[in-house]
């Protein structure tokens, strides 16, 4: 273990042949990377596949890291790109809400319901809007960092977030107005 080495140091150690450095780097950030993958793809299987694909890619491409951004930003960018690729390949947005077991939910049933409905609504957004909202509104990344992760302009991220929120508000009204739809997201997915 290298508890006192920062992320860039771990990545450099990996490039120099340390067999444990990259695994340790992943362990440091795996929950946040997982959250981004799961919330942008919407289901456990795809998220796990995308994350594995992304991390192996990062493992192999570590020597290309130039230090122009933080290591976590670089890792997130690779993960988001892998998720985007997977979403495009599947040509599908998630057809079911996130399984409740994937989320460390609050104790109350109300909170659980709210989370399920919000995730169901989120799943109906276009990938770009969803990714921006996941990074900025849910995971709390500054807009500037989200822009680096998404490889786009800050203004674009703001715009995607604003449009995504507006659309989410509409979808949430629809879902809550007709509770049976919250479990039947496939009915509205065809619209996207």
């Amino acid at each position: 273990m290298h508890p006192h080495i920062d992320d860039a140091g771990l990545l450099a150690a990996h490039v120099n042949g340390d067999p444990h450095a990259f695994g340790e780097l992943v362990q440091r950030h795996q929950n946040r990377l997982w959250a981004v993958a799961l919330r942008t793809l919407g289901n456990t299987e795809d998220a796990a596949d995308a994350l594995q694909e992304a991390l192996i890619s990062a493992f192999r491409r570590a020597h290309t890291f130039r230090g122009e951004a933080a290591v976590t930003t670089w890792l997130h960018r690779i993960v988001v790109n892998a998720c985007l690729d997977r979403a495009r390949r599947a040509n599908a947005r998630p057809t079911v809400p996130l399984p409740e077991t994937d989320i460390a939910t609050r104790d109350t049933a109300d909170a659980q319901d709210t989370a399920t409905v919000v995730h169901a609504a989120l799943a109906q957004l276009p990938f770009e809007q969803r990714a921006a909202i996941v990074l900025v509104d849910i995971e709390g990344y500054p807009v500037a960092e989200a822009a680096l992760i998404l490889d786009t302009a800050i203004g674009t991220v703001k715009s995607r977030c604003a449009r995504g929120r507006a659309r989410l508000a509409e979808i949430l009204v629809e879902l809550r107005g007709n509770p049976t739809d919250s479990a039947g997201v496939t009915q509205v997915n065809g619209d996207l």
Partner: protein
Amino acid sequence: MAGRGDMHETNPDDDVQAQLRALPPVEMPPAIAARLQDALRAEVQNRRVPAPRPAPHRVQLRQLRRRTKVGLALTLLAAIFVAGVGVVGIINAFDSGDEGTVQSAKEPTDSSVAEPRSSQDALKDAPQNEAAPKESALFAVTGVDYQRETLNSQLDSLLNSSGITLNEVAARVPAELSGLASQPGLDQCLAAVGDPAPIMIDFARYGGQPALVLLSDLPSGEIQVRVTAANCGADGPNLLDTIVIPS
């Protein structure tokens, strides 16, 4: 879907933001964490496996270099042979008193009948002259539209090509790249790029636009790929990308 979100663009729904922020945190399930660590351990094992061995592209580049050297040597030999035959032919013609043959030998230079061309002169006119400064370069017109993400695999077709001469390039190259298919144009571009002797030059495309793809092997064992736009020349290399492929 019409007008979706537009009316809210400058006034994001605070309630939605609040609901998003209130979503419970997500933790990676232990089974998935274990799966990822297993996958990374496998990568580490693969990384360790053989003692340093040249990557396929490196081997291909070496083969290319060997091929170009052999090709150049054969060209030189052929040129010397042609020059030698010319001299012997002239001498024989004089010896035999065959006016017709002498005349034909004299034809190129009416005023210098007895001045046979040296093998050095012959070399100047030999076919290798068409690619003189790039004597170790192979040319190709693959037409491949290279992309940064897939460049490594796309290079296979280039590295497996047998290579053509610059004159052949000129006959095949698309109009946008024709300026680089002449020796002066190519020389200016290579000078601007700062790599006078790439191993392989492909007149192709990059990210959808006409481009020159230059492959060089670095002393470190890596392969450097430089991509220039069609307007590479005296005004600058107009590099579209530079990528180093590890050995």
